């Protein structure tokens, strides 16, 4: 049959062939356009129906959950109010309540969700990345520790989104073992912002500090991983990390690692760190110098650091800003005023620092 039509087509004149193709395209596009229009209307109707349905269901569930919270109703009694098709919606709704309460009330709500949680576990293997991530997110809010192995497995998932949701779920529980599992798979998170990653890991708590310190000083690890470790220690206010200044503040150390360490020292630094910081400042790297100056100001308040005067003439504006703030913080307002009302190239900046609170 196809051959028959093809034969007719090739026997047509060129003009007719083009006309035929155009007509066929018009027909196909017309069908497509009608399909699109109907799909859009259908979508609108479906969305409206869905939101009406969820609104209705939530109005049914809300008093029941409040009764469970006030112990007027047993958690398992909600079963008859949740249709199997609405499990996902119910768990999402329930998890919003769980997030707002704690203690025994939280436990009662978790109990109410337990029969349904098991039914969504198969979605952990869904082909859709977002579905897998969504299940992990939901399970994490539904709390029980029994899903930790699933979360750890999800750290190896091929999707970054799933990795991150799993890491968040593990970190939130605050168990050192979970934290170690995240550190083990840190290479999966290279793309994420260091700040975000370190904030996640810091949720595990101080128990993870020894492992983080080990990572911080391990020169075989990539610099970004060591930076994450230092930023996490910074967020944990880990004073023991200060004992490694002799290892990190060396001339051949990676610049990002040293900069992160200086930011840590700004919080936990002591007088014993001064020689190391001065050594770093000698590298004349603007980022390191800007960070170093501020720590020196804090640590050497009595012996006012002379390097501030030198820094006021530095070519990097960030170094100058830090020096000006250093002058202000160390009470050298007269010196700063001298800069501000002279013809020094940074006079305006000095005036700005003087005016700012």
């Amino acid at each position: 049959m196809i051959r028959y039509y093809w034969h007719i087509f090739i026997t047509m004149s060129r003009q007719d062939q083009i006309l035929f193709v155009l007509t066929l395209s018009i027909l196909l596009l017309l069908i497509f356009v009608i399909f699109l229009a109907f799909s859009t209307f259908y979508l609108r109707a479906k969305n409206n129906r869905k939101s009406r349905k969820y609104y209705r269901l939530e109005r049914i569930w809300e008093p029941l959950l409040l009764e469970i919270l006030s112990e007027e109703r047993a958690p398992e009694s909600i079963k008859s109010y949740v249709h199997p098709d609405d499990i996902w919606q119910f768990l999402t709704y329930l998890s919003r309540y769980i997030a707002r309460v704690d203690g025994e009330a939280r436990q009662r709500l978790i109990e109410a969700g337990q029969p349904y949680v098991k039914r969504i576990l198969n979605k952990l293997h869904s082909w859709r990345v977002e579905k897998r991530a969504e299940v992990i997110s939901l399970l994490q809010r539904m709390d029980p520790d029994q899903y930790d192995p699933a979360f750890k497995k999800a750290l190896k998932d091929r999707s970054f989104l799933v990795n991150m949701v799993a890491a968040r779920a593990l970190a939130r529980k605050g168990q050192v073992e979970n934290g170690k599992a995240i550190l083990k798979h840190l290479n999966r998170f290279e793309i994420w912002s260091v700040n975000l990653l370190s904030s996640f890991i810091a949720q595990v708590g101080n128990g993870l500090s020894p492992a983080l310190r080990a990572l911080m000083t391990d020169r075989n690890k990539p610099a970004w991983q060591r930076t994450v470790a230092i930023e996490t220690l910074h967020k944990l206010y880990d004073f023991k990390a200060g004992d490694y200044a002799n290892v990190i503040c060396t001339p051949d150390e990676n610049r990002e690692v040293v900069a992160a360490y200086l930011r840590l020292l700004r919080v936990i630094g002591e007088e014993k760190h001064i020689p190391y910081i001065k050594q770093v400042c000698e590298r004349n790297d603007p980022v390191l110098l800007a960070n170093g100056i501020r720590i020196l100001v804090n640590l050497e308040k009595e012996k006012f650091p002379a390097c501030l005067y030198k820094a006021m003439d530095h070519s990097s504006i960030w170094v100058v800003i830090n020096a000006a703030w250093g002058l202000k913080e160390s009470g050298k307002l007269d010196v700063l005023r001298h800069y501000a009302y002279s013809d020094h190239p940074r006079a305006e900046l000095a005036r700005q620092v003087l005016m700012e609170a």
Partner: protein
Amino acid sequence: MIDIPRLFLDFFNHVVLAYFFILNTVYLILNSISFISLRRYARSMRVLQVDELINIAGALPITLIAPAYNEGSTIVESTRSLLALKYPDFEIITVNDGSKDDTLKHVIENFDMIQVSRAPIASLKTAEVKAVYRSRKHYNLWLIDKENGGKADALNCGLNYARTPLFCAIDSDSLLERDSLTRIVRPFLENKETIAAGGIIRIANGCDVRGGEVKNIKLPKNQLARFQVMEYLRAFLAGRMGWDTIKLTFIISGAFGIFKRGIAIAAGGYHTQTVGEDMELVVRLHRYCIENSIPYHITFIPDPVAWTECPESMKILGRQRDRWQRGLIEVLFRHKKMLMNPRYGRIGMLAYPYFFFLEMCGPLVEVPGYLLFLISWATGNLSTMYVSAFFILAFIFGVNLSIFAVGLEELTFKRYGRFRDLLNLFWLAVIENFGYRQLTTYWRARGTWSFFRKVKSWGAMERKGFQTIEADRNKKS
């Protein structure tokens, strides 16, 4: 004997056909890709909410740079809208670019600004800064009064004074949604290589504005503005989303885009000799990062919204489109080195050629195409059937793309909640093909002509101001 005019007509008709086929195929592919990625985006939003990320990691400080030139009618409302943004750490730098109206006075009086000292951090060359002001009411609001130098110059000036790792370039006649900064910052948290991100621009004409926020979203009453609603839906939801999915974001609208300050300065800031400074910066960032082997990511996200007032008169709209076309040509000519250059990867081999051959050269094919098609038909070289079939096909293709965009909107953000608006959008998808599309093609062709005549002017834009509830009440009383 060879009939040269006929041969020429034949040849050109084939060029038009090829152009039409390639352009619409690209559009259809982009639409389909957008469909998939918008669905994924909506789902991933549910899993990892950006508010939560910000709560955990803290917000990246942002400086909003809003250049203003003769924006007296909208500046107060739009600054209020910026001040009301829901974001933990941001400051606003409004740059008065030598306005001839009362823009400066409005800002100083309404926000209690006093002159202060503030030193620039970077040293991009700009027109002279006359004074820096800071609000006594809002500690994060700054005003820089400078000599006129154009929008790019004003942006560079703001960039010089910005101190935060990120800056957000916005038009001062735009209204950002409350959570738009929270949303647009997400790619910077999720991918440390992100250097720029753009949000979606929507039309505020016809919507009610209360307290600097768009409240009641409706289609505009003005027909020209309605056509632009449809155009923006197509351009952002289908076009830019599609390009972003294949990691080829080539344009970030000047009305709302966020950049890493350091890299924008290192690349030289905004180019002041073009009217397409927003696109130019993005193309230059691509080029700068590739040439310096810097890993980078430039992206578009479909849900942070900036509402803007679009032109409601043919004259102003024509000027705007003329300028857009000139800007496009200036940018593409300036970076012509990238065209089909494998060194620039997919940007040089796909995105640049698309904008060069299909967007820039489009009017040069379409305008003569209409004329020569008619000549071919009048001289009997093309049959009436053939010409009609072609125009019907072009019409249905156009309707198709527009309805696809409406479908994408319905699938994801559902901003036009009234059923009447949905019907109107369908109607617009049909009628825009009779006149409006041809007009925009004409304006683009005129822009091409202006470019070759070396016209550099921005063209005055008249602003009506947003339809605020307060203004409505005043009118009634």
